[in-house]
């Protein structure tokens, strides 16, 4: 019998699909599988696509898949949609725009819910990237949940981060003020046939040019491109820009080799420790009943939440 990891590496669709489900559901046994898969990762090129809801990320991803397939390369897509904070349920609808690829064996599309995680990307998504990488996909496209201003986790996992905007959102620059502007490797103005695209272009250019010093020192200068994804206009030029960014990364010291990049590894390991600690601590407190007891005490006014938190956490830390 082949192990789960062996089946993933062999490209078995059902095994991959089930493994991503188990990752999402936080099944502890997936850790061993992920350990086994890790040596098989690091070959795929990961592109993150982010931007506010409604800018056309899914349509763009659909066109990217078509173009990448024309190049004879395989693609994995992870499409993230929000979980309802009230019911815990989610409607994952990004597949609607990508269905024409569903019969293509070179394409694997998976919808994922955020499950209450903010930042546009979950730890599960990161692990799912590794799974698709290990199964041998050449490109992995991660479409984040439509993010607001500083939810830009995707940069920690993508080689190239693409920020999608549309003309005429607020005073144009409003939607992309701090965080997002700093993390974009490529900016796309989608629906560029709409009024105001030149204004958006010049606003973006103004902001990006302000980092001139960085570019003079050989840093990557993010291109700004106009596209009309729904009409497949500008998508080729966009993918050429991705190629240029990949070439740039390949020429920088450890750019393309994520695993060797200290900054990325530091971030990712930090996130993983946080997630693991929270999981273990909450599990322990829930199982022992201490968590519920503390909730009751706070509700009954017997203790304040600050004290309750200390009472729960300190013994674990010192123990």
């Amino acid at each position, binding site marked *: 019998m082949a192990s789960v990891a062996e089946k993933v590496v062999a490209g078995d669709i059902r095994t991959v699909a089930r493994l991503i489900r188990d990752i999402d559901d936080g099944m502890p046994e997936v850790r061993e599988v992920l350990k086994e898969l890790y040596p098989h990762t690091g070959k795929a090129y990961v592109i993150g696509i982010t931007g506010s809801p409604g800018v056309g990320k899914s349509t763009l991803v659909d066109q990217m898949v078509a173009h990448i397939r024309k190049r004879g390369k395989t693609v994995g897509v992870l499409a993230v949609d929000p979980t309802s904070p*009230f019911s815990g349920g989610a409607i994952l609808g990004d597949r609607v725009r990508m269905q024409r690829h569903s019969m293509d064996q070179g394409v694997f599309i998976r919808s994922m819910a955020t499950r209450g995680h903010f930042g546009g990307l979950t730890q599960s998504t990161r692990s799912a990237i590794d799974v698709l990488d290990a199964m041998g996909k050449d490109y992995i496209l991660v479409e984040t949940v439509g993010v607001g201003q500083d939810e830009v986790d995707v940069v920690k996992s993508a080689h190239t981060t693409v920020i999608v905007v549309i003309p005429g959102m607020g005073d144009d620059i409003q939607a992309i003020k701090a965080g997002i502007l700093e993390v974009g490797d490529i900016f796309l103005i989608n629906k560029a046939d709409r009024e105001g695209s030149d204004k958006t272009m010049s606003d973006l250019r103004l902001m990006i040019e302000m980092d001139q010093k960085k570019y003079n020192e050989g840093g990557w200068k993010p291109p700004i491109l106009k596209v009309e994804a729904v009409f497949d206009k500008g998508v080729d030029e966009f993918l050429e820009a991705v190629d240029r960014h990949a070439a740039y990364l390949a020429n920088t010291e450890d750019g393309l080799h994520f695993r060797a990049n200290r900054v990325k590894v530091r971030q990712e390991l930090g996130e993983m420790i946080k997630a693991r600690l929270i*999981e273990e601590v909450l599990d322990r407190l829930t199982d022992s009943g201490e968590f519920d007891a503390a909730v009751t005490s706070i509700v009954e006014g017997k203790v304040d939440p600050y004290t309750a938190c200390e009472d729960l956490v300190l013994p674990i830390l010192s123990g």
Partner: protein
Amino acid sequence: MKQKRRVRVMVAKPGLDGHDRGARIIARAYRDAGFEVVYTGLHQTPEEIVEAAIQEDVDMIGMSSLAGAHRYLFPAVVQLLRDRGADDIVVCGGGIIPEDDIAKLKAAGVQEVFTPGTPLDEIVRWVEENVSPR
């Protein structure tokens, strides 16, 4: 915290009919019940539906058909799932479906059929009682 296994459901519109209002309402009801709902949109072939269901690892496929092709489309999905060794995925149908056809669909392996006017609560309860996350 330990994640609860979530029910994953696919809502699909097979065939040529272009009305998905009902399907979207069902999708919303499932969401409100705490399920993760993969919505595939209109005009799907049985092959596309089954492939998507496998990639998404869903527990159930709910299909809606209003154009009379359910007698072909629903059993075709059941058969394709069997061919792929994925017949542990529950198949349900809904839409404009004549009373006479329901027994035939069930005999073909469609587990439940919901006709117009069925309260949303009832559909959600059926899923909760008959579909568990794998």
